[in-house]
C-alpha cells in the first residue's frame, strides 16, 4: 500500500479513483498516566506516556484507513490528512482521511 500526502505517488501514475477513505480512533489515557502527567506538569518536559498513546492511536487510525482502501480494491492512498480533536477531558480523537486510488 502506497501512502502519500501529496496529490500523487511520485514516480507512479494514477489509473482509477475510488473516493474518500478514512480511519479514526478515540482513546483515553489511563489513570496512572494521568497522575504521572500532572506531576510532569510541574517540572515541564516531554510527556512520554501521552506521546506513546497518541502514536499508537495514530497507527491504528492509519491501519483502519488502509484496510478500508484494501476492501475497495485500491493499492494506494493519496492526499492524506491528519486531524486531532479532544472530545472530552482526557480523551482524544485521531482522524485520518485520504483518497483511495489505483496506481501503476
Amino acid at each position: 500500500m502506497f501512502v502519500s500526502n501529496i496529490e500523487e505517488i511520485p514516480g507512479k501514475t494514477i489509473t482509477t479513483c475510488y473516493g474518500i477513505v478514512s480511519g479514526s480512533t478515540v482513546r483515553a489515557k489511563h489513570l496512572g498516566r494521568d497522575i504521572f502527567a500532572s506531576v510532569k506538569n510541574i517540572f515541564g518536559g516531554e510527556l512520554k506516556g501521552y506521546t506513546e498513546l497518541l502514536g499508537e492511536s495514530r497507527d491504528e487510525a492509519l491501519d483502519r484507513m488502509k484496510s478500508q482502501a484494501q476492501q475497495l480494491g485500491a493499492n494506494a492512498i493519496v492526499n492524506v490528512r491528519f486531524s486531532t480533536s479532544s472530545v472530552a477531558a482526557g480523551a482524544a480523537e485521531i482522524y485520518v482521511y485520504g483518497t483511495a486510488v489505483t496506481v501503476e
Partner: protein
Amino acid sequence: MDSLTIFLILLALGFVFGKLAEGRHYRSILAREEMLLRLPATSCKKPMGKTLPVGHAELVHGHVVISVDYFKQLLASLRNFFGGTIQSYETLLDRARREAVLRLKESCPTANEILNLRIETSSISKGNSGDRVGSVEVLAYGTAIYYREVSSQHSGL
C-alpha cells in the same frame, strides 16, 4: 500558610527543573538538527531543483507531547492579565515543533527529501487545568521520497 509553602515549593521546583530541561532539550535539538542537515524538508509538493526519477515514496510522521513547567504557567497567567507576548509559551511551541520535525526525519534517515511537510498543533490538556495551555501535541507529517538509484541500494525499504 501551609498551602503557601507548597505553592512556593512547586514554583521553585518548576523554575529549577524546567530551566534545566529546556536547556538540555535545546542542546539536543541543535546537535540533531546539524546531523540531519542533508535531509531537506520542504512544504512544496514537487522536489526542488533536481529532477531525478523517484523510486519510492512513503508517508512519514513524527510527533511529541511537551508540557510547560509550573513556574512558566504562572508567568503566563500573569502575562494574561497585562497582555503582551508570552515568551514561555513561545519557547515551548518552538521546542515541540522542532522536536516533531526531527523525529519525522529520524524515522526515515535514508530518504532523499521530504515533500509537503505539514505541522499541526493541538493542546491536549484542556479541562484538566482550567483554560491554561499546559501541554501541547505537535504532529509533523510529510511524504519521504527516495530517488531511484538510492532506493535500489535499499531495496528492503
